[in-house]
């Protein structure tokens, strides 16, 4: 068996990191992010015995292109761990078992930390900035800046942690930031939302209160529509419909 390399060359690590941004590029209902995982792993797999196009490389690429689904940012952990396992010569059956076991937890941690935690937090922060009178450019920059500091950092950390721990990456997922972080972020988001929503409403209504009735009516109508659609329409479809409505309104005004 080939001795495990202690480190990946920086350019291979960088290539894998950059490819992580395309991890959902070939998403489909059959293999989900499987193709993306193989794409991100490919620079490391070239270092298998026989090199690019060799039997080991082809077998690993075929194995890694199978079904996998996890949070796109936390998938970096899996990519790092799988690269380590493939280059360490871990048996294929154990690698397959790891992929099955990792998909749920990496989805769960990512969903709680990002979709239910950091994204709402950054949204509330941007909304508060708007309510406090920040310019549109500042609001957008604040949102994108805050969100992407964690987004980009999480992908980099995940790839490094996965590579360092290999299939024992559960140790890395046990870090307090991932275990306790989501609960703290959720509480902070609730606090920020409590400040941001009334501030933003005041910002929309303006000093003359000319559109007070319109805003209140819109809130009541929106609440009624969302309540009546509960269980009858997927949340993302509703979000796209509302976003489209706001875009049309802003263009008409």
């Amino acid at each position, binding site marked *: 068996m080939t001795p495990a390399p202690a480190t990946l060359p920086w350019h291979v690590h960088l290539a894998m990191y950059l490819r992580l941004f395309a991890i959902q590029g070939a998403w489909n*209902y*059959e*293999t*989900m992010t499987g193709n993306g995982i193989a794409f991100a792993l490919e620079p490391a797999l070239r270092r298998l015995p026989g090199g690019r196009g060799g039997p080991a490389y082809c077998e690993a690429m075929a194995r890694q292109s199978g*079904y996998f*689904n996890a*949070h796109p940012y936390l998938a970096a952990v899996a990519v790092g761990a799988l690269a380590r396992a493939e280059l360490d010569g871990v048996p294929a059956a154990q690698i397959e*078992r790891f992929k*099955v*076991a*990792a*998909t*749920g*937890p*990496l*989805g*769960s*941690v*990512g*969903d*709680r930390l990002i*979709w*239910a935690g950091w994204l709402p937090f950054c949204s509330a922060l941007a909304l508060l900035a708007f309510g406090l009178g920040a310019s549109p450019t500042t609001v957008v920059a604040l949102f994108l800046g805050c969100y992407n500091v964690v987004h980009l950092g999480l992908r980099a950390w995940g790839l490094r942690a996965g590579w360092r721990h290999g*299939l*024992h*990456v*559960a140790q890395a*997922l*046990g870090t307090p930031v*991932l*275990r*306790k972080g*989501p*609960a703290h972020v959720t509480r902070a988001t609730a606090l920020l939302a409590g400040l941001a929503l009334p501030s933003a409403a005041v910002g929309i209504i303006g000093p003359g209160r000319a559109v007070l009735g319109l805003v209140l009516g819109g809130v009541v109508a929106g609440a009624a529509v969302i309540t009546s659609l*509960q*269980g*009858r329409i*997927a*949340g993302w479809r509703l979000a796209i419909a509302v976003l489209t409505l706001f875009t049309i309104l802003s263009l008409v005004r």
Partner: protein
Amino acid sequence: MTLELFRIDDRLVHGQVVIGWGLPHALGFLVVVDDEIAAAPWEQELYRMGTPEGMEVVFATVAEAAAAMPNYQADARSGMLLTADVATMVRLAEAAAAVRQVTLGGLHHRADRVPRLRFVFLSPSEESALRGLAARGVTVMAQDVPTSAPIPLEAVLAAEGTE
């Protein structure tokens, strides 16, 4: 409160489970029924990392889960029982009468499966097993998250495709 949800989901513990179902149902514990995972501590450690603090996750074989069912049912917390495949849930239903309603939460592509819904792919043997489960009086439906409408088994089996 009790063990109120029985779900077949090949990803077992993931975001839809701990957030989608976990928050509205205030789930306090999960029971993962899988003979292989029950014997693999390193896999259990991974799944534990996927659960939020305050939510207990228990791993059991089919036999252990069937024996412990009265304890799960008597638990003061709300709970969800998960299996990764149809066969395991069928074995559990045969061993424990408490399984009265089963939700197909996510069964993804495999070479022998055909798409029924975007989140449910089934093989002919799995479809037969689910019909058998329904014939035993178990209500079977497909529902990935609580905000989507539950789809009865007959409608699932009649569906073709991923939309």
